[in-house]
C-alpha cells in the first residue's frame, strides 16, 4: 500500500497532522476535521462515519498505547479513486491484539443494572470498516483503513 508522501505533490492529500494522544486534543481535532472534510466535499453521512471511526481508534490509542498521554499521534487522510484512505501512527505501546479481531456487541444482560457502559468501540470500528490493517514496526503502531466516498 502506498501512503501519501507529504513531500510530494499530492492532489489527493486532505489531512497530514499530528497532535497529543489525549482525549481533549482528540475531541478538538475531530471537530476541526469535520469542517475540513466538508470543504473537501464529503457528504454528511461519510463525515459522520469518519468522525466516529476515528474517535474510536484515536481514543483507543490514547487509552492503550499512550496511557500517560505523553506522545503524539500522526494522522494522514487522502482520497484516491473513490476511497478515503486513513492512516494513524504512534510510538506508544503495542495495541492489545484482542482488540483488533472481529468484535461483537457487549452482553446486554438481563436488567438495566447489567447494561454495558463500554465495549462498543471495536464493534463500531469493525462494523463500519472492513479493511483495517494493524502493523507494529520499529516501536510504532500503524493503523490504516479506507472508506468508500460514493
Amino acid at each position: 500500500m502506498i501512503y501519501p508522501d507529504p513531500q510530494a505533490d499530492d492532489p489527493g492529500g486532505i489531512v497530514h497532522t499530528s497532535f497529543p494522544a489525549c482525549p481533549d486534543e482528540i475531541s478538538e481535532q475531530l471537530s476541526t476535521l469535520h469542517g475540513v472534510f466538508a470543504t473537501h466535499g464529503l457528504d454528511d453521512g461519510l463525515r459522520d462515519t469518519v468522525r466516529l471511526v476515528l474517535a474510536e481508534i484515536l481514543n483507543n490509542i490514547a487509552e492503550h498505547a499512550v496511557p500517560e498521554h505523553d506522545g503524539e499521534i500522526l494522522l494522514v487522510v487522502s482520497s484516491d479513486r473513490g476511497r478515503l484512505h486513513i492512516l494513524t501512527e504512534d510510538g506508544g505501546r503495542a495495541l492489545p491484539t484482542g482488540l483488533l479481531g472481529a468484535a461483537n456487541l457487549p452482553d446486554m444482560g438481563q436488567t438495566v443494572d447489567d447494561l454495558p457502559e463500554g465495549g462498543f468501540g471495536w464493534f463500531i470500528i469493525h462494523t463500519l470498516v472492513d479493511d483495517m490493517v494493524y502493523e507494529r514496526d520499529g516501536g510504532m503502531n500503524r493503523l490504516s483503513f479506507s472508506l468508500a466516498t460514493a
Partner: protein
Amino acid sequence: MITSHHPNDGTVVLTVDASRIDAASAMAFKERARQLVQDESGRVLLDLHQVEFLDSSGLGTLVAIMKMLDGGRKLELLNCGGAVRKVLALTRMDSVFIVHPPTDADDRAGQDAA
C-alpha cells in the same frame, strides 16, 4: 453542560448544552447528570438537540445516566440528530432507551407528559 427544567410535576427535562458527548467529556457529563437526577423520581428526558457527535464513551454515558434512575425507569431521549441516531442504531441501543421521534417543537416533552 446540562440544564434542567420541569415542564410539569414528576417530569424533568435535561438539556445537553454541548455539541459533543465523547471520551473527553464523558466523566463530567456523568457527574453533572448525577447531581440533576438524584432527587428526581419521575420521568427523565434528555434533550440532545444540540449534540452533533456521540462516540462509544458518550453512549456509555447515556447508559450510566439511565442506571442512576431507580425503579426501572428508562431514560428518554429527545431530538436526536442523525449522527446520534446512527450510533444508537448501530449498537442496537435504540431499543434500550426510549427514543422519541424527531420533532420541530422544542417543548414536545412537556406536551407529551402533560
